């Protein structure tokens, strides 16, 4: 994953293990971080205490914590965060990772790689709203395409082929006699 390379800061291995033990609740093997330990739970929390524990796990306050619907398109108990693109975040605030406009321990949105500084800025207030843009686009492209496709079958100024100049209409077009010069 390229993101860890972006935020590569070098710390001692002992500090790494101690920090992991302090923050995480599951047993962490200092030899590596396994997906099975860090993946979200299979289902969103049902009881209030489970919700509070899940919020604490993800580093959020319980009032901010909500999950996606558990209808097969969800992500377990991973939080549903408001969509704020990196470009739209406060440019004058001080961040722990200024290139990402992100702070240490802040939970990432599910589609965070889509809302980075080099990608889509979804939370921008556009001068022209999307539905107006779409209407204009479909109108121009639609009319152009319609005219193009109709012109296969209908000619507005049809050009006809000229007849071949075979000069067999009986008229005399050329003569080899010289003009009489008086």
């Amino acid at each position, binding site marked *: 994953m390229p993101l860890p390379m972006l935020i590569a800061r070098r710390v001692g291995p002992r500090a790494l293990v101690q920090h992991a033990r302090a923050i995480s609740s599951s047993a962490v093997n200092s030899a590596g971080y396994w997906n099975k330990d860090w993946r979200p739970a299979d289902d969103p929390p049902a009881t209030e205490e489970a919700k509070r524990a899940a919020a604490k796990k993800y580093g959020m306050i319980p009032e901010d914590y909500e999950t996606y619907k558990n*209808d097969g398109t969800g992500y*377990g108990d991973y939080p549903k965060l408001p969509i704020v693109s990196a470009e739209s975040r406060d440019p004058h605030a001080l961040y722990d990772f200024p290139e990402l406009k992100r702070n240490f321990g802040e939970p990432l949105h599910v589609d965070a790689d889509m809302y980075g500084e080099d990608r889509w800025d979804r939370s921008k207030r556009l001068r022209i709203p999307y539905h107006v843009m779409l209407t204009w686009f479909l109108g121009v492209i639609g009319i152009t395409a319609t005219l193009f496709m109709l012109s296969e079958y209908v000619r507005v100024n049809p050009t006809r082929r000229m007849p071949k100049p075979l000069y067999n209409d009986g008229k005399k077009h050329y003569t080899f006699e010289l003009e009489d010069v008086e």
Partner: protein
Amino acid sequence: MFDAEMPINLPAQYDASPKEQRLVEDRARLRAEFRKEYVKQITNPHRHGHGGYLFDPALQRWQSMRAQQYYYFKPNVKTGLWSAFIVFTCFAYGKLFGITRAAKEKEFRTGMVSYADREFKFA
């Protein structure tokens, strides 16, 4: 910037309800905790260990979630219909394309299109 404790005394907010102020304070408290941990890691003078990078648990959780996204998919009516719709659209478009192409090919092969009416005459 590398203060040990980040101040969480926020300016008084006269337009926010007490509940909202409490929420803001809670968030700031959490943020201060994480900030303290971050500063401790960054200013660690023994940090030139091998393979060491600042481990961010939030980032790790996000990465694990993305790596295991397949296991959170549950087949039911809604997802089944959605998947069927996508697959059906792909096959339907391909079939339609094939039918139109076959009709045109038949026309060409049986000599129904004259040389003067050939496609891409002006290419």
